[in-house]
């Protein structure tokens, strides 16, 4: 097995750190299995939402009346840019082992992610106060808050994880354990962006079109 070979999803350390590269294969693949099972959870929530958004209006507000597409678009950009920033954090870790620039990119990622969560909470606030659309109003809204809320909760735990990793980088430096944890966090973060593609398309855009 050569060190230049790619062993797992995400950024591979390869020849820049052969020892960590070898160690990464197993743990990253294990984490990949977790991510796939997490996707199954989201799939079930998507299926519930798909059924509820058509059949579960229950005389309450319809999707097109309560969704703010502009907000959804900005949220999409925030999450996409934050995913991109994490990619550059990983490259700074791989090629330069420069803790300072890794931390700077992580900070950018975290700020964009926090802005995303903040905007979503603001969306909820507007929906509940201005549109009279709290979770208990209809099956559609219960499913909506459950699906987007689960995603927002995932993003929030990603942010907590990011803070913990920043502390670990500061305390331990970029050793093998820290690198492997960052690689898994990167996969988690990118996967949440993939789930968001489903949410902005099947929840927001579909809701406004139909």
């Amino acid at each position, binding site marked *: 097995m050569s060190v230049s070979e790619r062993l797992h999803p995400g950024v591979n350390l390869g020849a820049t750190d052969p020892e960590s590269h070898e160690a990464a294969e197993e743990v990253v693949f294990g984490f990949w299995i977790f991510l796939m099972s997490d996707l199954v959870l989201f799939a079930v929530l998507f299926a519930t939402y798909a059924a509820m958004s*058509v059949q579960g209006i229950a005389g309450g507000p319809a999707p097109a009346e309560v969704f703010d597409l502009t907000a959804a678009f900005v949220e999409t950009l925030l999450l996409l840019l934050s995913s991109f920033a994490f990619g550059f954090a990983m490259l700074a870790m791989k090629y330069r082992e420069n803790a300072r620039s890794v931390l700077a990119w992580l900070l950018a990622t975290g700020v964009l992610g926090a802005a995303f969560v903040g905007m979503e909470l603001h969306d909820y606030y507007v929906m509940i106060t201005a549109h009279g659309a709290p979770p208990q109003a209809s099956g559609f809204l219960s499913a909506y808050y459950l699906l987007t809320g689960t995603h927002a909760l995932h993003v929030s735990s990603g942010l907590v994880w990011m803070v913990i990793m920043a502390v670990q980088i500061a305390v331990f430096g970029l050793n093998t354990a820290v690198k492997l944890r960052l690689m898994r966090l990167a996969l988690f973060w990118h996967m949440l962006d993939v789930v968001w593609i489903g949410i902005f398309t099947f929840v927001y855009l579909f809701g406004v079109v139909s």
Partner: protein
Amino acid sequence: MNDETPAGMPASEYGSEFGERLSYLIGLVLALVLTGAAFTLVWMKLLTGGAALAVLGLLAFIQVLVHLRCFLHIDLARSHRDDLKLILFTALILLVMVSGTIWILYDQHLRMMP
């Protein structure tokens, strides 16, 4: 696509910082274009009804592939087939669960209409 390196991709794509940065940048630009197209479609009301849903679904599917390829670095090379198999199997499970749920619940919905 052959087994060593995907067609049109330089062999150094994962071996140099420039190559890897380029991969993320390409991913970002493609994702922005696809997202922009999807939202423009709805904002400008370019399509309606089933056609709009179909195009939006297709755009989302392509964007997922772009993210998997450029951000998660999943490709078709032979050295890491396990990841790909896991994704394909998960996709199968997802397809069965989501389409099955929608089918059954919609059918029941129709039967329960007054």
